[in-house]
């Protein structure tokens, strides 16, 4: 996701995202943070990428199983570090910490909300899915997803405006 696109987005905007996103949830975040502290090369170049907090169900004979967002706040402790490393956007559900909002603003990133609890619906907007890293983590592995018209709402924009400041304190 490039700088110009991010600059166009405001908290509360509805967005249809098409392109590549990488899934990562609790254990992948923990592992990445340890690798970063140890100055190891990450298995996926996350510069300019969008991370989706998601652990999909197995695909069966489909592209992907059910694939909705998980609670973002559990990733708060790791997010500023990832933004500093070049991650551009995150997709999840729910609130973020003040430190995350500040880091999104500082790094000109974006945080999106995906429809929560609609994993079956969202699976139809994923056109390709493959393991990108940490296969041993099973449902918590990093998957590379190609999404098409993935329906999102901007939760935090690059100016640090936060959707829940307006509608849910």
């Amino acid at each position: 996701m490039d700088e110009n696109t991010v600059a166009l987005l405001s908290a509360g905007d509805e967005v249809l995202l098409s392109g590549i996103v990488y899934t990562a949830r609790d254990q992948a975040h923990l592992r990445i943070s340890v690798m970063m502290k140890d100055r190891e090369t990450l298995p996926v170049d996350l510069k300019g990428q969008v991370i989706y907090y998601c652990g999909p169900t197995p695909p069966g004979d489909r592209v992907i199983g059910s694939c909705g967002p998980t609670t973002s706040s559990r990733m708060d402790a790791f997010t500023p570090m990832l933004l500093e490393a070049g991650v551009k956007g995150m997709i999840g559900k729910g609130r973020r910490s003040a430190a995350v909002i500040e880091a999104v603003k500082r790094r000109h990133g974006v945080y999106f909300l995906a429809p929560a609890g609609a994993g079956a619906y969202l699976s139809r907007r994923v056109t390709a899915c493959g393991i990108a890293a940490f296969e041993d983590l099973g449902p918590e592995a990093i998957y590379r997803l190609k999404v098409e018209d993935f329906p999102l709402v901007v939760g935090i924009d690059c100016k640090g405006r936060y959707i829940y400041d307006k509608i849910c304190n």
Partner: protein
Amino acid sequence: MTAREVKIAEIEKAVKALCVRANTVLRPDVLEALEEIHGKEKEGTLAKKMLGILLENAGIAAEERIPICQDTGMVTVFIEMGKDVVVRDGRLPDAVNRGVEQAYEEGCFRKSVVEDPLMRNNTGTNTPAVIHMDIVDGDTMAVSVIPKGFGSENKSRISMLDPTCGPERIIDFCVETVRIAGPDACPPYILGVGLGGTMESCAALAKKALLRPINEPNRKPHIAELERGIKERANALGIGIMGLGGGATVMGVNIEEAPTHIAGLPVAVNLSCHALRSGSAVI
């Protein structure tokens, strides 16, 4: 009274079928509540649109037999075992766990259970299930499964109130639980509330309360009134779906109560997301 034999294989088959159905077909009472909320929401709002997506999601899941939500949960099983039932050919917990394992493998559900809370190694089978059993009269066994995701499980709370606390303090605690969860745990919520018992039985009661249809109030009028009171005040928080505001923060409140000690008034809230999944069968 002669004992009635129930074979382990029958229990295994029932648990498997219940898990598959619960994860793919939304409960009719929950679907009805979502439709009602969607109908009442103001036209053109983001909340209305997202509620529409939830209804569409339920349709896709049932039609394609894929999970309503990717978090297919950790399975809790409640068994009401008739005293005249004799289980044959093996151990009851093994049958339950084999049923869960088969459902999660064949249904392509996510295996979300780790063997050790600190080592975090996935068991790969979504077992073990948590099993609660009561012995009741009769020669049948009632089995209920509730595969619950942890987004909302994480926001559940328990408090040991003073026995002199009245309904208002109970309402305060329940509403505070919803306020703390905010938009994070997939509102509109359903609250399973346990009242009384001991600390651990109160928590189990809160989960069991979620089995009851949400349009069916508690049989005791003063408890039913408490259910209404909690729902009304929680909805005044105005969180709404995904925290986008609108009328619906809580879809239902189910309380189950139990005898307790003179010194205490345990209250537990087992918070459920809008995709409350469960199923029951009698063997």
